[in-house]
């Protein structure tokens, strides 16, 4: 039985061609590619929504979109960027890289892998379809707070069901990743030898398994409140809308670490390569990641300081939140210490990694400000919060994925990208990002509320700057697509197997591009 099994795999590169290859593939590289293309597509869909929002906010008054559509756009922008761009993007990197980094031939559950990808296009088709229903798309913000989300038309139901589908997809993906890492490591690759990207994904996958079902529960309660006569969140039936916020954020806070931990992993791969030194404090990095994951489950109420909690509760959540700065600080210091006295070169991936460290730290510091209860009463639901989470999500997650794309693209395609264009893309992205989001700190401190299509005239100047930055930021991403296409089409300089002089790890031992099946007999790890 097992002998026949091995023989069947001897036909290298045998696969259906055309569309059936992509529909039926169980190959981790193909699925990774599909995830990454899907993520990039959703990045543009969500980006266009962001530009519509910024166009509306270019000047006070109502010009471009009506308020109902504005509400739907803010809701969908967030849902698409979080569940459509960032999460599938990281899953794409995980699919491509984890088997190659631990010396496994493929993911442990390849058919489930295929299924968890192919759920996504349908989920997002349904989510976007909600815009075209009577009553429009969901208008409650991505947090779907009751009672607003208990009202609303069929668009809200479509959103709820699409969240169920995204949840199933990410839970299946997470199970697959854990089973792969736990069972398929090459001989000698013990847990404390795994590359940090694999470690951060392992912990992220556990977070997904623990957090996503809670979100599924919360939106199921919404659905039954809407249609089946339950009253979880309706005071008339003895429910409580604040309960929704507690359940939602019990999912929501681990979720924000799901969105950033793989980025930490990516930075921990890139920085040592271009510093030509091993990562400083590997063990402490692993423990810091686990520490952040644990703390993420006991800080959720800092998103809702203003609902009226007992003082003891506010103090607990404030101190617990500030405690997260400790393991996060450990990580930042370790990256800096890795660069200390290294022979640093500044290729595009390294530039992105440095920007992530620098800008994420700014976002982390504004997060600390938000953690302070009395200050949060002023900052809550203002543009300060918007600035904060775009510094950690765009500059942290998205820019780490851009860096990762430049870092591993030569491995995947066998061709170098155009370094000059890559650097141009980096600098324009970083500059326009700051032009867009830095002024939003000031807007928030001055009291401009978020999620409102109109604003007082004194906020005009900063909003104009922010909108100009946003359009620049959006436009520059077309250059990113061009650079990728150029490398994929194979006209550029050929890449070596190691690609980068300082690169270390199993994925750099196979050819660039890697054969369709890698590590069919496991490598030996020293």
């Amino acid at each position: 039985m097992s002998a026949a099994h091995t023989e069947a795999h001897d036909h290298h590169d045998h696969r259906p061609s055309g569309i059936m290859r992509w529909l039926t593939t169980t190959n981790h590289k193909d699925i990774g590619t599909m995830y990454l293309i899907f993520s990039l597509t959703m990045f543009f869909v969500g980006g266009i929504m962001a530009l519509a929002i910024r166009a509306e906010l270019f000047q006070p008054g109502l010009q471009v979109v009506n308020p109902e559509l504005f509400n739907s756009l803010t809701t969908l922008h967030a849902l698409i960027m979080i569940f459509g761009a960032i999460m599938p993007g990281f899953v794409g990197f995980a699919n491509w890289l984890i088997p190659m980094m631990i010396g496994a031939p493929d993911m442990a559950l390849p058919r489930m892998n295929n299924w968890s990808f192919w759920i996504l296009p349908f989920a997002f088709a349904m989510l976007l379809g909600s815009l075209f229903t009577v009553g429009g798309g969901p208008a409650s913000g991505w947090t779907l707070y009751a009672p607003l989300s208990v009202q609303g038309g069929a668009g809200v139901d479509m959103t709820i069901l699409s969240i169920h589908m995204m949840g199933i997809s990410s839970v299946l993906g997470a199970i697959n990743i854990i089973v792969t890492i736990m069972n398929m490591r090459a001989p000698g690759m013990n847990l404390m030898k795994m590359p940090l990207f694999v470690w951060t994904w392992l912990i992220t996958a556990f977070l997904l398994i623990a957090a996503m079902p809670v979100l599924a529960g919360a939106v199921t309660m919404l659905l039954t409140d809407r249609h089946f006569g339950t009253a979880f969140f309706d005071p008339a039936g003895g429910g409580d809308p604040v309960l929704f916020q507690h359940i939602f954020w019990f999912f929501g806070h681990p979720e924000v670490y799901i969105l950033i931990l793989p980025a930490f992993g990516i930075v921990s791969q890139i920085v040592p390569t271009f510093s030509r030194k091993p990562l400083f404090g590997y063990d402490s990095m692993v423990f810091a990641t686990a520490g952040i994951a644990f703390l993420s489950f006991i800080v959720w109420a800092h998103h809702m300081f203003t609902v009226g909690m007992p003082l003891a509760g506010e103090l607990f959540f404030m101190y617990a939140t500030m405690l997260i700065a400790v393991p996060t600080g450990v990580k930042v210091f370790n990256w800096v210490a890795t660069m200390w006295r290294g022979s640093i070169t500044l290729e595009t991936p390294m530039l992105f990694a440095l920007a992530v460290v620098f800008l994420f730290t700014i976002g982390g510091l504004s997060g600390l400000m938000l953690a302070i209860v009395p200050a949060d009463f002023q900052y809550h639901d203002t543009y300060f919060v918007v600035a904060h989470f775009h510094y950690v999500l765009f500059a942290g997650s998205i820019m780490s994925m851009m860096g990762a794309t430049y870092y591993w693209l030569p491995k995947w395609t066998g061709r170098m990208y155009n370094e000059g264009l890559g650097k141009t893309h980096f600098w324009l992205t970083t500059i326009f990002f700051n032009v867009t989001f830095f002024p939003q700190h000031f807007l928030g401190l001055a009291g401009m509320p978020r999620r409102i299509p109109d604003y007082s005239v004194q906020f005009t100047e900063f909003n104009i700057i922010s909108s100009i930055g946003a359009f620049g930021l959006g436009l520059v991403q077309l250059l990113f697509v061009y650079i990728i296409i150029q490398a994929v089409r194979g006209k550029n300089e050929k890449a070596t197997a190691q690609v980068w002089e300082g690169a270390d790890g199993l994925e750099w031992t196979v050819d660039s591009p890697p054969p369709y099946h890698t590590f069919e007999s496991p490598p030996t790890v020293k």
Partner: protein
Amino acid sequence: MTSSQATRRSKTRWIVILSGTVVLMFGFGYALVPLYDLFCEITGVGGKPTVAVSQVASDENPIDYSKEVTIEFTATGNNSIPWTIKPLVKKTKVHPGEVHKVNYLVTNTSSQQMVGQAIPSVTPMQGARHMVKLECFCFNAQTLEPGEAREMPVRFYVNKELPDEINTLTLSYSFFPMNESASTSDDQSEEQQSSS
């Protein structure tokens, strides 16, 4: 046992453990509902007033005349039911431990018999647990005939553990419509009994 069989068994074990965790966490989301209610009941932060009979003034537990608390009574109309509700007294001063009774006038402005349930709320919420109701029209659903107006009583006291910094409590009511079948009012249940 070959190593590939061992791997397969280990894979299956992990899949079972992880799927079990997923199911468990889905259940945990639902478990948060009673946990939340329990937490609010213990700490009194949900704004829902306490229903209890402990600490009523007695010889061992005299009324605390040294402190006076202002109680304000309000009510909020609600689009979902055509009833008006207003307190007959807007404001009163009580001593902790002293039992008071206040009436609300509730009118059914529609031309149909209707059943409504009053939901109370106390602000500030830190005081909610110290506002103790002995009798309240909010304990049961109320049935009003078309156009009927009825005075409905609430008997309460403020317990002595009310923090010193709170000297005003506001008791507010809002009525919500009840399904006929969910009604617990007396004549309704009699009808159900006689028909069954």
